[in-house]
């Protein structure tokens, strides 16, 4: 995987580990949708990785889009 000038590009193992942690956070939040703080670190890792595999610029708002995925779409009780 090529290196980004702006971000440390995570390697395969770091990406998989971030996905596993994110899965646990999502799964642990049975009664409430997880808050952004709990997953911020995972989003940063995955955002940097996706920017490389998709050959695109990292999200200009950091991880705003993925944050919204978890923070802005709360399932009904």
């Amino acid at each position: 995987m090529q290196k980004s000038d702006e971000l440390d590009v995570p390697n395969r193992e770091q990406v998989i580990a971030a996905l596993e942690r994110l899965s646990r956070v999502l799964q642990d939040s049975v009664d409430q949708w997880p808050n952004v703080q709990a997953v911020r670190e995972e989003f940063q890792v995955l955002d940097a990785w996706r920017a490389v595999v998709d050959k695109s610029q990292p999200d200009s708002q950091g991880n705003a889009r993925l944050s919204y995925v978890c923070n802005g779409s709360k399932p009904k009780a």
Partner: protein
Amino acid sequence: MTLPQVELWMEVEPSCNLHCQFCYNWWREGHKPSPLRLSTGELLAGLRDLSRNVQYTSVTLSGGEPLLRDDLGVIVEFFSAQSVSVILATNGILLSQSRIYELNNLGVGTFQLPLHSTSEDMHDQLAGGRSWRRALEALVDIREAGAKAVVVFVATNLNISGFPRVVALCGALGLSDIIFNRLIPSGMAARSQSYLGVPGDQEISDILFQADSIAREAHLTIHLGVPVAVDPEIQAKMTSVLPASCPISRGQRRWTIGADGTIRRCSHAEKAIGTILDGGLRHLLDELLVQIPYSRGDHVNCCHIISANLVRLGKN
């Protein structure tokens, strides 16, 4: 001459290295032996005959587990030589990084992998074996190889509430498509449906509505893999959920080919109209060109059994 277009679902390998509780393969119900597998030569000869009369638009190589078949690359090459889009539906256990690159170079453009939960234990319970982590690794490897990865989710009463979280995880992976299937009580699923449970239409509608907003933000499309009677009011509000239709119809384009060469109307059905090595081809062409009437009896497990079960359970 313009040839009729056909989309194939090919069960190239009947055996599998998992024991998914929801598996709809008809030979997994336990009463009948698995279909025999055609040799490479027989299979390619049948497909070659068929291709003189129809145009393949896409093919999905499935099973069982297709990666258990040693000659999978040869089959992929056959289709890619005809510029046919090849999709590989696998559980991911045998999908190493080198295998992904090899198959992608041969012509597999899309890899379909299961992800039934963000919980490893739930996914592995449904899959009947340790496979969640391998699926996650394979999804990362597919993305890094520059191929397309599509996640398949099978909804049962045990895992359906977690679907929005699976969508969120797919968003984090940067996927663009996810397939949502409801448990079809045929094959192994016919035996395990009482404890897995078949979600009703209203329950599915509510979950899809939750998932739709997440999918929209993550730029994901949710494709229904089987017909679901989504609440019309909810359907009208959703922008990222695409409905499905039953493939069985007059002049149908989607056909299933078994490992033994049988030609079937639906992957959930055992009943065959013939094989690619004999008169099945003629029957298929009659369907495509003349549009002969089809029998209601050809709607086998999917539509009738589900609706019967849901009525019995008072869900619809």
